[in-house]
């Protein structure tokens, strides 16, 4: 955003047009995923509550065969919640655990078709889940090309593609951000200025893909009493863009898990 303001009006307009073209080109690769979950909460090893829940999130088709990638934390939010909730507790008898087990996964394509899907691979380390339609789609799906990637510089504009949910009629969405930070350790991640959803791709104005928005979570250690005031950082969580090449590398294993 800062870059947009500082740039000349005409150049900014050109860039906006380019980003709009990028959004238009790939919007059909952004799909909605509806996940039915069995959520079980335990304390000290004893289940205290269980419930069924349904979540809707966004994912990105990365192969015309239907291979799709999303953020694992939206498919299995229990694991992340468990780590967060156990930050401040004492003995084993107080340990909370939340397990979320997907019982049904359905992809909703841009044209409104619903396809039952199967989870083929998870990567907790990188917060990735790969899903694939249970039955082969009749025609190739629009898929982003992870191989056509580029590395952004700090303050570069990126457009993050998304899709609204049921209330929004599943309309395609695009939001403009700039790169606010680049992490190099323990691996490369790009951090946006502003909160973006996960499971969605980020592109540069030149049409190159930057990567996929996921969650990076570390053990935050013992959180201070006011840890929550530090936002997600205090809970050991930060939204990041995982470089496309890293997604592609893991996607190879997903392809092998046919």
């Amino acid at each position, binding site marked *: 955003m800062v870059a947009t303001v500082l740039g000349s009006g005409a150049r900014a307009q050109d860039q906006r047009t380019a980003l709009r073209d990028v959004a238009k080109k790939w919007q059909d690769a952004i799909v909605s995923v509806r996940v039915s979950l069995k959520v079980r909460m335990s304390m000290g090893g*004893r289940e205290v509550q*269980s419930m069924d829940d349904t979540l809707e999130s966004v994912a990105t088709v990365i192969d015309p065969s239907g291979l799709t990638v999303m953020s694992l934390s939206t498919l299995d939010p229990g694991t992340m919640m468990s780590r967060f909730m156990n930050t401040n507790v004492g003995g084993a008898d107080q340990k909370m655990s939340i397990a979320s087990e997907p019982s049904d996964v359905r992809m909703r394509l841009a044209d409104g078709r619903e396809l039952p899907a199967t989870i083929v691979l998870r990567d907790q380390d990188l917060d990735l889940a790969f899903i694939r339609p249970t039955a082969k789609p009749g025609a190739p799906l629009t898929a982003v090309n992870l191989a056509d990637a580029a590395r952004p510089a700090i303050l570069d504009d990126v457009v993050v593609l998304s899709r609204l949910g049921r209330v929004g009629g599943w309309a395609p969405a695009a939001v403009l951000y700039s790169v606010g930070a680049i992490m190099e350790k323990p691996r490369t991640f790009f951090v946006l200025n502003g909160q973006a959803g996960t499971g969605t791709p980020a592109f540069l104005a030149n049409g190159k893909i930057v990567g996929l928005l996921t969650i990076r979570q570390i053990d935050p250690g013992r959180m201070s009493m006011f840890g929550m005031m530090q936002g997600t950082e205090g809970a050991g969580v930060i939204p990041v863009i995982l470089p496309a090449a890293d997604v592609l590398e893991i996607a190879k294993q997903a392809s092998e898990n046919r």
Partner: protein
Amino acid sequence: MNLVRVGLASIVTVTLLHTPTSAGAQPPSPNQSAEVELALSKVAPSLVRIHVVTVDQQDGREIKREASGSGTIITPEGHVVTNHHVAGKTRSIICTLPTREEVPAELVGTDPLADIAVLKLKPSKPRTFPVAKFGDSSTLKVGERVLALGSPLALSQSVTMGIVSNTEMIMPGMFWPFNRMTLDGEDVGSIVRWIGHDAAIFGGNSGGPLVNMKGEMVGVNEISLGLAGAIPADLALEVATALMKEGRVRRGWIGLEVQPLLKSSGTSRGALVGGTIEGSPAARAGFVSGDVLTKLGLSEINVRFGEEIPLFNRLVMRLPIGRPVQAVVLRNGVEKTLTVTPDDRENAEARIQELVRLGITASNVTSWAAKELRRADRNGVRVRGVRPGAAADEAKPSLQNDDVIVAVNESDIKDVTSLESAIEGLVHNRTEPLPVLVTFERASERMLTVLEVGRPGVQDPGMEARKAWVAVSVQALTREIAEQLGIPGKSGVRVTGVMGGSAAAAGLKVGDVITAIDGDPVQATQPSESDVFHTMIRQYKIGSTVTLRTMRGKEERVVKLTLDSSPRLAREMKKYEDPTFEFRVRDVAEADRRELKVPAFEKGVLVEAVSEGGWAALAHLGDGDMILAVDGEPVTDVAAVKGKMEKVVAAKPSAVVLHVRRGIRTFFVEMETGFTK
């Protein structure tokens, strides 16, 4: 005012379960003690503690819970009177006698309107039981001493003493809308005027006897409004007798809604007719709102106060079913005689059942429900709950509470039984989900939806991505630790555990500090950076060789090792979910053994989840428990557990015994099965 309302609501709700009443009377004198002892000797031998597994419904699923109450043996054959809310909706009942014997029991009949249920003890050998005698509750006087017997808080049989505070206690109207105690849709206060007393009762006293000083049961303890409240013995006896005779209470019903005379009416006799239920005998007889009913059959009617409503309702319910009775009303000051023929009164709510294949709880349509839902007949199945994510929920449109299913694949559905058999007929021997066309009525609309019946349950969660891995656990080498170790300025990770694999083969040891991988420094100086090492390793391909620069003490070393593949996670282990007892187990992963410190020779399966409200949860099986044996047979993997549990279901025993490890302890878990032979 709000405070008062909330207070009463919680009291009414909680009192059925756990709330103590106010303190009891003064300690008795020696003479009184003898009198108490004598009274107790007549009732205490027939007092039972009732342990039940109750069933409830929540979000389209049946939930089982343990509960406890009290009861009194009223026949030598072992009939026990208690509350409907104690034992009316149960999957198993065990009664503990004063001798501490545990005797199973079965439900003979239950009546939510009076909150009375009757059980029958089922001893292993025929025997007779000591019986408590009913007293005449109509002769009770305010101030008379009474004893409350029972098993408060599920403890052993106990007694408290107090006095009768009120012989016609009702829920005060000023607490509207919380002045009703409703059980299964029945307003208990519509026929019960409680005996109010100040003998302390707690949760667990429910169903226990209120006893006079003659040792007679004059009431059945039920509620607390601060004062305790007992159902009068005359009503309890009448209902219990009907339940023992027919398993239900036949009551007359005319559908007449009466209320106390309005203060402004100037009328001093009769009962004001507020209205009639559409299509009811009273409506057919010609009663209209505003009539003042002065006589019904041979009885003069006077309802001037709320306390008189239960008496009127009981009068109506005692009318002979199907036999015309004359009623006299004042309409605009003119007497008019009407003839009304009572119908057989049906319970407000039908039994709710779980239909697992559809993912709903449902009930038949009662007459009351048909009226409330404005339906012309009682055909169909009323949806009472929808399980999120199950077939009915995923249907488009989803089914909702109070939808009435009237057809499946265009075949008419009459009731829950016909719906169950229709679905079973369709999915029998099928392994694939089957789309079923369901016709249902929602309010005034007749709608269609398609349910995918037989959808698979928990699916394969997907494999975990395999990454390059070194079988060590590490901590970040903070600046402070580096200084204390005599290697200031170094960054890296310190090995805290070696789990085998190429790390052990290469000679890595606990205490080694890894400072670089293939020349790239391991830059970890904060505790939160301990994952830097493994993250760097994960960038490599499985099977590639790396060179680690390490330090052992102050000595620099170089270690070459071939990267292993990350081990299979616990989540990837084979699983088995038992649908009958509602627990899930998985094979034990190496990581589990390390974490739980389970020796390699000990075989078993790990409990991953125990569903709240299932049999396993009731037996207190917990997540993380390791099942070593089922009914004495060792189980080494989930396949063995599956086979064993299938045999259990076929044999239908009353209990299954699991041998379980929890931490350093082993013990046995006896799991009820709910099977009845």
